[in-house]
């Protein structure tokens, strides 16, 4: 009983607001003091269809720089994480602390300094500039997940494969990387979400020239049309959700094929 009550509370807290947004999206005329939406009007949904071009351009742009940030942070962190997890050297904890700092300190500080530099070297208002700044802000999550992954898996399998004559690349691709996939997925999802939902950094460095979904969403959310804002917020939940479901499915299938159960 008390578990059911708690579950009900979770539903109320985290899922119910989305239903209220569905209500606003379907009934633009729903407002105080009506408690429930009382008719259906497809005005907001037809806006989504009419605006499909710009909408998908902004969504595509956001997916592009977010996924690029995942790849960039993975490339940046993979080898350093292995070192930080496996090789003892003096000052390791201090170094790790420093390397995790970009996720903690206010990102505006380094972003506004970088903005100055990016203008000078021509990276401001470009996609690579946005990818770099977003990666710089979100890589600590990838680093932390990879370090934990390397610590948890140990290097026994890799050593064993080495003894059996596997080359460097075979060990990396066939042994080490597959074992780290869960950590990469965990770190990658956080990096993706941080990048995808970031508004200010993309707005500052992208300067409106780099399409982003948050940039598209913001003026609508702050306008008085709650219906449009609701519809687009729901689109915002839906796309990453689909991405995560697909990813779970693909990875699960790949693991089952290899005969592993995750």
């Amino acid at each position, binding site marked *: 009983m008390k*578990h059911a009550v*708690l*579950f009900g509370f*979770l539903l109320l*807290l*985290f*899922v119910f*607001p*989305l239903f*209220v*947004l569905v209500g*606003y999206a379907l009934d633009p005329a729903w407002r*105080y*003091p*009506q*408690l429930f939406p009382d008719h259906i009007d497809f005005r907001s949904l037809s806006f989504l269809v009419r605006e499909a071009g710009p909408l998908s351009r902004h969504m595509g742009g956001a997916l592009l720089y977010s996924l690029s940030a995942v790849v960039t942070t993975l*490339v*940046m*962190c993979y*080898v*350093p994480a*292995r*070192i*930080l997890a496996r*090789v003892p*050297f003096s000052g390791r904890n201090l170094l790790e*602390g420093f*390397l995790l*700092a*970009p996720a*903690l*300190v*206010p990102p*505006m*500080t*380094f*972003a*506004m*300094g*970088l903005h*100055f*530099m990016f203008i000078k070297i021509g990276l401001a208002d470009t996609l690579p500039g946005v990818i*770099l700044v977003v990666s*710089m802000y979100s890589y600590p999550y990838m*680093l932390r997940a990879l370090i934990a992954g390397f610590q948890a898996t140990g290097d026994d399998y890799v050593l064993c494969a080495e003894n059996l004559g596997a080359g460097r690349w075979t060990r990396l691709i066939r042994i080490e990387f597959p074992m780290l996939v869960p950590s990469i997925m965990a770190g990658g999802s956080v990096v993706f*979400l941080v990048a*995808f*939902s*970031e*508004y*200010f950094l993309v707005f500052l460095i992208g300067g409106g020239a780099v399409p982003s979904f948050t940039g598209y*969403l*913001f003026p609508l*959310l*702050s306008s008085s049309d*709650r219906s449009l804002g609701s519809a687009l*917020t729901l689109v*915002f*939940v839906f796309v990453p*959700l689909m991405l995560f479901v697909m990813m779970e499915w693909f990875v699960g299938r790949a693991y089952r094929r290899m005969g592993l159960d995750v």
Partner: protein
Amino acid sequence: MKTQTLFLHLSPLLIPYVSLFCAGVVLAAVQSVGLWSPVPLPSGLGAAYTRLWSSPWFYEMFGFSLYVAFVSALLATGGGTLLACGIWGMPALLRRMSVIYKATLILPHIAIGFIVLVFCSQTGVLASLARLVGMITLPVQFPNILYGGNGFGLILAYTYKEIPFAILMVLGLLAGFDRRLFDCARMLGASRVRIFFRILVPSIAPAMHSAFIILFLYAFGAFDIPYLLGESKPAMLSIEVYNLYFKRDLTNRPLALAMLMLMFCFSVLFIMIYSRVVSSLTARERKL
């Protein structure tokens, strides 16, 4: 491993760290003292800092940002911990279904601000509910949560956004917790409250501390939610930085960057002191 090889292996991270993050902070610092300004500045080097030093509004905003960040991080960590413990105690099926808490995790901060706006404004969902049960008859009678000048709207938005994060962190640690410790304590006659504080909390404390630091510093320096909810008096530091940097005279830029530098230094100091205090507390506990 030789030092050279070590550096070589760390370089994919160290190079961008130094050339982007450190360089960004240094450039912000350089501009904050008044160098490399796009326009000639009327006052000398470091004038921005002396001006902040003697401005009451700066202290007021600093205090307000601290207050909003502290209260929301405390509420989110506490609430998230309780919910995580509740979810952890559920039967397997319900526990698996409880992933619904991640819905709020996916939503960007501006969308959370929007939800708070929809629910808590004076013509929002809660106001409609209050009118239905007869607590109010006119929208103005509903408490002005969002623009009341006490930061409740911001605190609500941050808490709501951050609770799932705290749940995630705490559940991660609870997954490896041995439930038999519970039964043992029960058999030895410990009360529920005692079990919670003496067994559960110490073992999830690391997750609670990291959640608190992350959430506190995020709310302290973030821009998205205050920009959307738009409470302007008193304002969060980040909003004032934005206004000074973009909306007014170019001569104000050093002032904006000086504020950012002070926020940066405060964050670094906070991390250092907090981790020092936590490690000394745990060391004392181990001695007992």
